[in-house]
Structure formats: structure tokens, C-alpha cells
């Protein structure tokens, strides 16, 4: 009976370790990371390949937060990240004006573009403090919300002398990439003569602090 109990507990222990995918860092417990960076270094960008010229735009007014249990990241991650449409810059003032107008993203009516995490899967631990995974979430733009799957790479840094130069507390660096179709979000790129491709690649490079 004791042998059976021991085997059962061993299997339970091993399966718990395997299923609990998280960061192996000094910090433990549930942590909340805020991504508001007053210096505007946090960034969401988009890329559009067009027959005339490739267009890149950046948005630096990023806000939002994520929270998770450090030891069981995969099951506990939740959060929302957003970027202000008014902060998007394409390097050409006239183009920025078009982008924010009612014909396009309609910044006055829909001031934010956001991504809310629903679930994550395909988690790979690439280092003790680093995870790669696919995040399923609700992406909202131009008043339309659709489910998208983003490739995400998250790195956890315990607070040290170097991280304190950036922000107090532990830091979480997040890189993400996913594609969207403009027509899915009722953005009519035909209005500007198909200057912008239907498929847009979105990248996110953000660093959050838990203090």
C-alpha cells in the first residue's frame, strides 16, 4: 500500500513539474507587470508591404498590464495591452493624418488599439528566465474585436543594478508578432487607392515593471 502511495505521489509530483511551466527566477508568487513607460520606449509597430513603398509605423503610447504566477505562467497569465492611435507615426505627417482620420483608424472615435490575452499554448522554456509561446487573444481595432494568435517571447529579469537603471522592480520583456487583415476590422484600404496592403504585420516590443 505504501509503495502504491509513493508511486502515486511521485507521478503526481513529476506531472505537476511538467505541466507547471513558468520562469525559474528568484521571485515567486503572483506578479503584476505594468507596461506604461513615461519615456515612450515601449512600442507597438506595424509593417505593410506595398507596390510603391514599404510602410512602417510605430506607436509609443503603450499602456496595460499582465499578471501571472511566476511558477505557473502558462495557466495563470492574463492581461491587456493597448496603444493610443494618436501616437502612431509613419514618418510622414500627411500619412499620419490620413491614418488617424475617419476614413482609416478613426482615432477620435476609437482612440485605442488593444490586445487582451485569452489563453496561451505551445509554451517552450528556452532559458530559466525565458519562455516562448503562442498567445490567443482578442485584438480590438477600429471598433471591431477579433481573435488572433500571436507568437510571443517573454524574458523575466530579477531586479538588479542594471534593471534599476530602467525601472524599479523585476522587469518583464515581451516581444510579439502577429498578422491581421485590414478588412477584418472594417478598415477600407481601397479608400486610399490600395496604397496599404490588406495584410499588416504587427510587432510589439515592451518592457514592464512589477513595482
Amino acid at each position, binding site marked *: 500500500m505504501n509503495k502504491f502511495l509513493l508511486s502515486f505521489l511521485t507521478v503526481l509530483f513529476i506531472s505537476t513539474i511538467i505541466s507547471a511551466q513558468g520562469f525559474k527566477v528568484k521571485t515567486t508568487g503572483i506578479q503584476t507587470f505594468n507596461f506604461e513607460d513615461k519615456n515612450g520606449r515601449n512600442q507597438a509597430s506595424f509593417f505593410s508591404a506595398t507596390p*510603391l513603398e514599404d510602410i512602417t509605423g*510605430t506607436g509609443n503610447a503603450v499602456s496595460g498590464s499582465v499578471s501571472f504566477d511566476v511558477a505557473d505562467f502558462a495557466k495563470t497569465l492574463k492581461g491587456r495591452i493597448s496603444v493610443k492611435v494618436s501616437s502612431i507615426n509613419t*514618418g510622414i505627417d500627411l500619412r499620419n493624418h490620413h491614418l488617424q482620420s475617419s476614413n482609416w483608424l478613426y482615432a477620435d472615435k476609437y482612440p485605442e488599439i488593444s490586445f487582451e490575452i485569452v489563453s496561451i499554448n505551445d509554451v517552450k522554456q528556452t532559458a530559466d528566465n525565458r519562455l516562448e509561446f503562442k498567445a490567443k487573444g482578442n485584438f480590438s481595432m477600429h471598433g471591431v474585436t477579433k481573435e488572433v494568435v500571436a507568437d510571443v517571447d517573454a*524574458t523575466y529579469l530579477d531586479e538588479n543594478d542594471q534593471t534599476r537603471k530602467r525601472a524599479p522592480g523585476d522587469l518583464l*520583456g515581451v*516581444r510579439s508578432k502577429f498578422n491581421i487583415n485590414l478588412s477584418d476590422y472594417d478598415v477600407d484600404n481601397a479608400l486610399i487607392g490600395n496604397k496599404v496592403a490588406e495584410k499588416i504585420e504587427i510587432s510589439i516590443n515592451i518592457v514592464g515593471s512589477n513595482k
Partner: protein
Amino acid sequence: MNIKQKRTLIIAAIIIVALLIIWIAFGGHIFTRTQVLVEKKDELFPDMVQKEWVNKFIWGLDLSLVISVITIFIGSILFYLFRDKKRSAELS
């Protein structure tokens, strides 16, 4: 075509060719821009790249075309004004 008309034509052609050379020298971009994107690596997260807009003027084809059209327009007016009035009267 008199000497003044020839001069007008040559100057207009030189301006247009110069505009094309300037456009190519600036990298052959379609649209003129006043900012360019530079990529910077993050010190704490080396795989993370931050894109930053830096003020820099890039001459585009649009600007070359606008100045070329203005040059052709002014050149045409001058070409007309410099016509040999006596000869025109004789021909008519």
C-alpha cells in the same frame, strides 16, 4: 527656335536632370520624408529592437516630379514669350 528659346530649353532640361540625380542620390524613395527609422538594440534585452524616428530629410520622387512640372510650366511660358514675334507675324 531662337537663342533665348534654346537657353530656356537647355536650362529646363538641366534642372530636370539634376532633380533626377538628386532623387537617385537620396536613395530613390517614392515619397519625401522628414524622418527616418533607426533601429536600436535594447541593452537589457538584446533580442529586442527599438525603432526610433530621427529627423532626416529624404528627397523623394514626388518632390522631383512637382519641381519638374513647375519647371516645364515656367519653361513653356518663357519659350512662348521668347518667340520671334516678327517671324510669327510673317508666318501668319
